[in-house]
């Protein structure tokens, strides 16, 4: 975490910023959802509070905070209060392991009369060699938040809703994990930074022993694994309980499922968890299949040269270069979040048995087919 106090402080602050970024992204996402869904449904959505209705969410947050805090009689205190907190943990831990930009190299500089040595700050919470397997492991803990909520509410309907939700989540975890095997074969590593680095530059692949370069297409994973990307993206809809897979939360079905007995800010925390999972899913889509923080035409040297014409000093240059690439990744993440919202208001909800059938009988075989196909194609093309 760092050699001296300055580095440790900056790293801890970085983690705080990442977590608070996820929490602050939620009001923006909910605003986008309410306005976007409104326009899709040919109405206006919130536009009174603040410019374009942007302060609506602040008002809602304050309202949530000041609601009465009732505890259901038959519920268990620890599980009831622990479930909303548990809902935050998998999404945040997973998001912090994804590289958001190129590392910032800080040259030695003077401050308060002391020299602070050369540092390298990575633009992620922690740098893991086993990136994607860690994300899968942490995401599989998301089922516990649902189960704790259902059990802690002490109501039969909440429990049933929680069991159905967790059955759905674990079924689609299979398709999720299997759809990634193809892309792992292509890149040969679990490490996110290596996967992103391998997607820089133009499209390059091996065809019957010759190396083919297509200069006008980027070297993104989507061109190597289109079916895998489709299955992965669909499976993340089910993992995050988003429509069309949101039966566990559906109004009119089991009341509101596992969070029936929650009110006020605890209810909000579940939604921060759900949107956090959406953020992780979008970031993973961008990292695996759409080049991560790379953009065709932008190289670190080129961007650095551009910024050195604007600001002086190597440190400012490095920071601005890194921020440019961060913006690229955030734009891609924003695109996928918009697709999440768009699909929600377009497709009707699946019935539960259709949902489970889709997960086990359609996605799992197709993901398996994708794996075998990738293996065979790689084998043939490398003879």
């Amino acid at each position, binding site marked *: 975490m760092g050699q001296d106090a300055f580095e440790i402080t900056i790293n801890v602050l970085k983690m705080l910023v990442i977590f608070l970024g996820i929490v602050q992204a939620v009001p923006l996402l909910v605003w986008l959802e309410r306005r976007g869904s409104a326009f899709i449904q040919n109405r206006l959505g919130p536009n009174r509070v603040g410019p374009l209705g942007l302060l609506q969410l602040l008002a809602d947050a304050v309202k949530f905070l000041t609601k009465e805090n009732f505890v259901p009689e038959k519920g268990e205190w620890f599980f009831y209060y622990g479930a*909303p907190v548990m809902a935050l943990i998998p999404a945040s831990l997973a998001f912090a392991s994804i590289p958001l930009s190129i590392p910032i190299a800080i040259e030695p500089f003077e401050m308060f009369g002391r020299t602070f040595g050369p540092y390298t700050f990575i633009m992620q919470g922690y740098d893991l060699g086993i990136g994607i397997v860690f994300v899968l492991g942490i995401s599989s803990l998301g089922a516990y938040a649902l189960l704790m909520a259902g059990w802690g509410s002490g109501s039969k309907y909440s429990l049933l809703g929680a069991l159905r939700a967790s059955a759905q989540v674990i079924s689609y975890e299979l398709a999720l994990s299997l759809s990634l095997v193809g892309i792992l074969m292509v890149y040969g590593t679990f490490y996110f930074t290596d996967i992103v680095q391998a997607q820089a530059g133009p499209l390059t692949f091996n065809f019957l022993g010759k190396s083919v370069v297509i200069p006008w297409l980027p070297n993104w994973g989507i061109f190597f694994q289109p079916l895998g990307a489709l299955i992965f993206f669909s499976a993340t809809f089910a993992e995050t309980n988003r429509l069309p897979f949101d039966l566990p939360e559906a109004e009119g079905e089991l009341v509101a499922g596992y969070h029936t007995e929650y009110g006020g800010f605890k209810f909000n925390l579940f939604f921060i968890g759900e949107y956090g999972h959406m953020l992780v899913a979008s970031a993973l889509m961008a990292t695996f299949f759409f080049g991560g923080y790379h953009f065709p035409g932008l190289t670190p040297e080129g961007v650095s040269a551009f910024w050195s014409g604007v600001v002086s000093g190597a440190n400012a240059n490095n920071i601005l270069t890194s921020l440019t690439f961060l913006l690229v990744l955030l734009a891609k993440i924003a695109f996928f979040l918009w697709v999440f919202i768009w699909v929600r208001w377009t497709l009707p909800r699946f019935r539960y048995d259709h949902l489970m059938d889709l997960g086990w009988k359609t996605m799992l075989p197709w993901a398996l087919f994708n794996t075998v196909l990738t293996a065979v194609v790689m084998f043939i093309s490398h003879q």
Partner: protein
Amino acid sequence: MSALLAILTFALIVTAIGAGLVWLSSIAGPKVRKTSAKVMPYECGLPGQEAKDTKISIKFYLTAILFIIFDIEIIFMYPWAVTYFDFMKEGLGGYILGAMGVFILLFVVGLIWEVKSKALDWN
């Protein structure tokens, strides 16, 4: 190792902020006045109907067991996937494809049997 310390620190930060928010919401609202309507489990507004135990489907258990089985099989595919290219460079591509092919065949047989036996048909 530093990554593990970072993970634990981050988990601590998230838990602390989450718990803090929950605590804040529990003191920032009006005092709870426990009426019987509030603390009873919510059942579409009708007074308590869950007097007896209802039977719950065994499908949950089967889903979880089959999830474990297939999850373990997928876990075995992970190290295979990352070293597939290395094996091919050594010239062992056909061998490694065959070894995993047998495993995938067993996976597929299991999946087909599970589908045909209607073990996971939710109605």
